[in-house]
């Protein structure tokens, strides 16, 4: 446990000192959402209608943006070899690095999302569901993304390949995430959507580290 926290702490420290990864993800998220009113026109009803979907799609893309580097720097400078030789199981390494990634890129998205919802004239009834879905959904994005990031290590143009691999897997998260918000806005209960999202998280939590670790073992060989 101590080693696990050490690794999380190191990754957080690296992210905060470099600064770029975290801020780029949030900036991208905000800009991406802000572009929509320019594209579809400033009609408040249309914006309110598409707000949930736009915010969720932007969140998917923003989390994808920083995922490529999740294991890449450690892979390139030899740290990954040493991590895989340490007494910390590789599965725990994946969880630790994914947790740090989520804290740095996922949490700022959750904080920024309500502001963007205001910007898109989203019905206030959906705000609670928006934050809740992102709270459950963004860890799933990081976990599934970790598998892709591990698989594309060593591949040329890994970032593009990563998007192609991972985006289809994000579809269920997008459906239930946006669905919960729509349900809340239409005064239905978002509960079933949230439970399904939580179910996906419960499945991803053990499976993604396991698959990610297997891919990392291939990568260091």
């Amino acid at each position, binding site marked *: 446990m101590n080693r696990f926290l050490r690794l999380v702490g190191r990754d957080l*420290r690296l992210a905060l000192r470099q600064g770029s990864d975290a801020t780029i993800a949030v900036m991208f998220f905000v800009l991406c959402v802000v572009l929509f009113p320019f594209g579809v026109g400033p009609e408040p009803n249309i914006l309110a209608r598409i707000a949930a979907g736009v915010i969720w799609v932007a969140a998917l893309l923003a989390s994808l943006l920083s995922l490529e580097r999740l294991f890449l720097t450690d892979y390139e*400078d*030899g740290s990954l070899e040493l991590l*895989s030789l*340490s*007494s910390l199981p590789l599965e725990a390494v994946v969880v630790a690095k994914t947790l740090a990634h989520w804290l740095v890129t996922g949490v700022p998205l959750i904080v920024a999302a309500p502001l963007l919802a205001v910007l898109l004239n989203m019905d206030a009834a959906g705000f609670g569901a928006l934050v809740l879905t992102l709270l459950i959904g963004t860890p799933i994005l990081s976990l599934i993304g970790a598998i892709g990031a591990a698989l594309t290590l060593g591949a040329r143009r890994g970032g593009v390949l990563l998007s192609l691999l991972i985006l289809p897997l994000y579809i269920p998260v997008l459906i239930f995430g946006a669905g919960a918000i729509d349900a809340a806005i239409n005064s239905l209960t978002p509960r079933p959507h949230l439970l399904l999202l939580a179910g996906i998280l419960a499945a991803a939590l053990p499976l993604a580290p396991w698959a990610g670790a297997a891919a990392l073992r291939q990568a260091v060989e």
Partner: protein
Amino acid sequence: MPVFAGSELSCLRGDRLVFTGLEFSLAPGGALVLLGPNGSGKSSLLRVMAGLLKPIRGRLSWDGVAVADEPEQHRAKIQYVGHLDAVKPVLTAAENLAFWAALGGAADPDANAREALERLGVPHIAAVPGRYLSAGQKRRLNLARLLAAPKPLWLLDEPTVALDRAAIALFEGLIAEHRAGGGMVVLSTHTDIATPGGEELHLDDFAPYADDDDDGDDGDGVDGDEEREDAA
């Protein structure tokens, strides 16, 4: 009683057989120097020993217990130094080292890191971020891991690259000290590193031959002496 041993090891990289029928054994206090031309499989053998690479045949064992059966215990016994220095540019040298010391199970990683840097003769770089370190300083920082998280078996892949003469002498002293304390060292090198009493392993003795007539069972690959016309 050999402690760390390998038997009948064969290693495949891509579709090329790098070495085959390789045997070694290493007792406490022992040293094994891997020699051979480029591409003869020194790095591959070290990676096999570390467990990063699976041999396609053969087994590694500690006191007769196969490494494959107890990979965690094997990992707890080794320190591997590869070609890459694993130094993070935004962390200071002391932070870099303390992290690896903590991961290696040190009780007080910060103190261990300071002491290790001192023993490698570079206490002044402790507060310097990794990106400002020279190649030699990064290498010393990487070697300092060996001291910051002590393990019985050191696997060193060309450890003296980028080191100056004084540092090589210093490092030879550290190896001697490690061995005097019952530690073991396996290293590959192209320069001379003094390892008194150490065994030499010539990897081209285990190279698979292009004109191999009886390939099924390769008895003792040790006597494959003068046939060095391998297709490498």
